[in-house]
């Protein structure tokens, strides 16, 4: 059971709702993913073509909305978006994203820490999206983050766990759930993150942009379960077995 901010979840796959070709495909893919948490974004309504309303399309009883602050370039903008989100009925849950670099969309650690402190004190359950920086992850926990969301690889790259070693350190040190986010391009990447001991993963592009998003959603769901089971079971250590030294130099012991 995954527990974030005191709430229990059966599924360890969080799914993003962006980039789907239609609401119908998105709804079917989310069902197939088994996800209980879905991320959404806040945007100005397009006055010319308002389009479908995601609030109406998704069953709020079934899915916890995790609004993000995508588009925020600094702490002030993120805090403003968070409060708008709450006013819009988004609740207290928040995936905090502060991405000043429009090219890489990598998160700003300084602004993210500032915003987390403000928002956690304001009663939000803050899940900050961060580069895989272990010290930053600890600092965020110290100011009240409900979980941390290190990126496996820069968003949209589908590269998998390029920050593998750093994420391992984050997991080993964490006092809150670790959700690996961004860059997971294949179910095997998600499985690898879960095998490492991540508490959950968040996937959007790899499902939404797949030729068959519904089948891909199921694949990720199975991969996350497989990876989690493997972690719980315990994986064998890799590498060649260490030859035991016949002369370990222990002759000094208990000679009396």
């Amino acid at each position, binding site marked *: 059971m995954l527990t974030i901010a005191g709430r229990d979840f059966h599924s360890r796959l969080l799914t*993003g*709702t*962006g*980039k*789907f070709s239609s609401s119908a495909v*998105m709804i079917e893919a989310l069902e197939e993913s088994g996800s209980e948490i879905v*991320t*959404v*974004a*806040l*945007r*100005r*309504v397009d*006055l010319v073509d*308002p389009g479908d*309303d*995601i*609030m*109406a399309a998704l069953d709020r009883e079934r899915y916890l*909305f995790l*609004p*993000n602050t*995508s588009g925020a370039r600094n702490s002030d903008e993120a805090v403003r978006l968070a*409060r*708008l*989100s709450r*006013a*819009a*009925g*988004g609740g207290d849950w928040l995936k905090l994203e502060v991405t000043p670099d429009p090219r890489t969309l990598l998160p700003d650690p300084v602004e993210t820490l500032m915003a987390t402190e403000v928002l956690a004190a304001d009663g939000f359950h803050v899940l900050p999206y961060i580069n895989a920086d272990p010290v930053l992850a600890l600092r965020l926990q110290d100011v009240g983050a409900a979980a941390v969301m290190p990126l496996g690889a820069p*968003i949209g790259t589908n590269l998998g766990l390029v920050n593998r070693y750093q994420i391992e350190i984050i997991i080993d040190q964490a006092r809150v759930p670790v959700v690996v986010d961004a860059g997971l391009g294949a179910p095997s990447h998600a499985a690898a993150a879960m095998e490492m001991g991540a508490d959950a993963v*968040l996937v*959007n*592009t790899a499902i939404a942009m797949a030729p068959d998003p519904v089948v891909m959603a199921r694949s990720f769901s199975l991969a996350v379960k497989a990876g989690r089971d493997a972690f719980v079971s315990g994986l064998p250590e890799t590498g060649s077995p260490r030859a035991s030294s016949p002369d370990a130099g222990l002759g000094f012991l208990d000679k009396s």
Partner: protein
Amino acid sequence: MEIICNGEKKEATVGMSVEEFIISLKLDPETVVVEFNEALVGRDEYPGKMLEPGCRLEIIRFVGGG
């Protein structure tokens, strides 16, 4: 009168409330959040909040996102 909504100039009639304006855009007031001159407007205030000439409205709602 002219107001600014989501960065665009829009025509609105004098005496129109925020709620009426939202409905005129064929949006459900329950699913959007509104900033009036950069200040958040509570949902229960929509009917009583009157538009003013040159006021700036932001109408925001949830969309798909990762």
